[in-house]
């Protein structure tokens, strides 16, 4: 373990600082609240000569991701960041990045979608990209924002994986909030990531191996190439586990693809991701003081979905309250509940699932309200209700 350098940083600053230490070859980004500080800070570093990154100021997020695709195809290490509407504008190119198997890293400052216009935290923007064949991580705090920036490069650039990675931190409550961040020395970050990524021979523009990228592939080969992506996704699961174990060793912070909190003897549990998971843990502490047997599960790696880990963690628990800070409409369950239900279906000793859409557009769900969520799920479970979904924390 390496002695950390303690700093006070907001989530965005932590991402920018990690990016500075990584010193990527190319950054192409367009500012959007609440991601702005990442871009601002990093352009300061470029201006001050602290990094030798090529910074491409683009005119939109669509262009930002397009520039990243081009840069990454040459074998460069590429980073970008966006939020909400920006991510939606990138959506088309997200599939190009993953289809061309380019390990771009994207920081998402999770923010609600318009309309009505809203700049505050909500994870819907990242959730709607979960089928884009991007590895998807969620961060709870500025510390995790820092760590996941570094780990994302290592996961995506693994020659077995070669997929782009996005990680989300919630707008304002993480991106703009100052927290204690234990940073690593520059040298350690450089050693952890290695000099440059391994470049598979025919997968990169260079004068010695000319090739065609993103060519027209119709019925004949398209499905084989998509299946390659799925197999890479499955490998990404193991690679992420290894990278997190390796990172835990050097940083001294325990990283796992899911985080279990007081789950061993729990009868009831919360399942959440991102900053909400921190609140859930605080509520678990409060409920434990009252003698309730309750625990919390945080999903850090959302794609590839860690099915077996989650099943092992939730086996034997009676009921689960899913705190889902993302919106879905007319769906049989909330977004996280959908995946969880699919992961647990047909297995033995599985809990009943109760999904709660909360915290949209930065709405705060106070700790006593989360306690009510717990009481509600408990009641539902005792009434024998199997799969319920509900909205919480809004006025009738």
């Amino acid at each position: 373990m390496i002695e950390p350098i303690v700093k006070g940083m907001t989530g965005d600053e932590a991402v920018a600082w990690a990016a500075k230490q990584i010193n990527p070859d190319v950054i192409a980004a367009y500012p959007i609240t609440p991601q702005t500080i990442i871009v601002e800070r990093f352009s300061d570093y470029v201006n001050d000569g602290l990094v030798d990154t090529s910074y491409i100021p683009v005119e939109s997020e669509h262009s930002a991701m397009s520039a990243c695709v081009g840069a990454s195809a040459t074998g460069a290490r590429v980073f970008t960041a966006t939020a909400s509407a920006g991510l939606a504008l990138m959506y088309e190119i997200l599939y190009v990045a993953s289809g061309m198997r380019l390990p771009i890293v994207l920081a998402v400052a999770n923010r609600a979608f318009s309309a009505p216009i809203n700049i505050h935290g909500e994870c819907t923007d990242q959730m709607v990209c979960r089928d884009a064949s991007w590895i998807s991580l969620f961060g709870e705090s500025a510390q995790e924002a820092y760590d996941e920036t570094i780990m994302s490069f290592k996961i995506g650039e693994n020659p077995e994986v070669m997929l782009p990675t996005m990680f989300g931190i919630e707008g304002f409550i993480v991106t703009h909030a100052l927290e204690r961040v234990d940073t690593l020395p520059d040298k350690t970050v450089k050693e952890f990531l290695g000099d440059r990524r391994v470049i598979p021979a025919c997968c990169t523009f260079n004068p010695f191996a000319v090739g065609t990228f993103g060519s027209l592939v119709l019925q004949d080969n398209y499905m084989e190439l998509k299946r390659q992506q799925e197999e890479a996704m499955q490998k990404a699961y193991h690679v992420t586990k290894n990278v997190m174990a390796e990172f835990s060793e050097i940083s001294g912070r325990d990283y796992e693809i899911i985080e279990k909190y007081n789950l061993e003897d729990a009868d009831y549990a919360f399942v959440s991701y991102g900053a909400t998971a921190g609140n859930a843990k605080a509520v678990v502490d409060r409920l434990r003081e009252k003698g309730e047997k309750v625990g919390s599960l945080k999903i850090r790696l959302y794609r590839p979905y860690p099915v077996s880990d989650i099943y092992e963690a939730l086996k034997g628990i009676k009921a689960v309250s899913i705190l889902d800070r993302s919106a879905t409409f007319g769906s049989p369950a909330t977004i996280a509940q959908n995946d969880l239900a699919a992961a647990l279906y047909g297995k033995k000793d599985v809990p009943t699932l109760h999904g709660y859409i909360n915290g949209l557009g930065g709405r705060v769900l106070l700790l006593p309200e989360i306690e009510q969520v717990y009481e509600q799920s408990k009641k539902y479970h005792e009434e024998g209700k199997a799969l319920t979904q509900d909205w919480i924390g809004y006025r009738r």
Partner: protein
Amino acid sequence: MKKKEIPLDIQKWHINKWGTEKLPIGGAVPFHSSYGYKTGNWSARKPFIDQEKCTGCLNCFYYCPDSAIEMQEIEGKYVAECDFNYCKGCGICVQHCPVNAIEWTKVRWHTK
């Protein structure tokens, strides 16, 4: 004109119908694979280059979208020549020739 052939390993890719395990990741197509697609018989018209008039300015060489124009050395002078195996007959070279050395003539497929 030099012989254009697909590299042997890429020929196998087509013949053996490679699957997920063998196809290059990301659908990156290796170089020279396009030699296999002889699209020359798609065309309704063909360019015929008058090598006497050709000044070797390279305009047609650069503008040809199928890289069907090749420069040949004839008596110490470089002149353009069209490889009809790959020419789709778009006529761009005709438009770009500054000395009107290229004639665009109709081809009749059915009389082949």
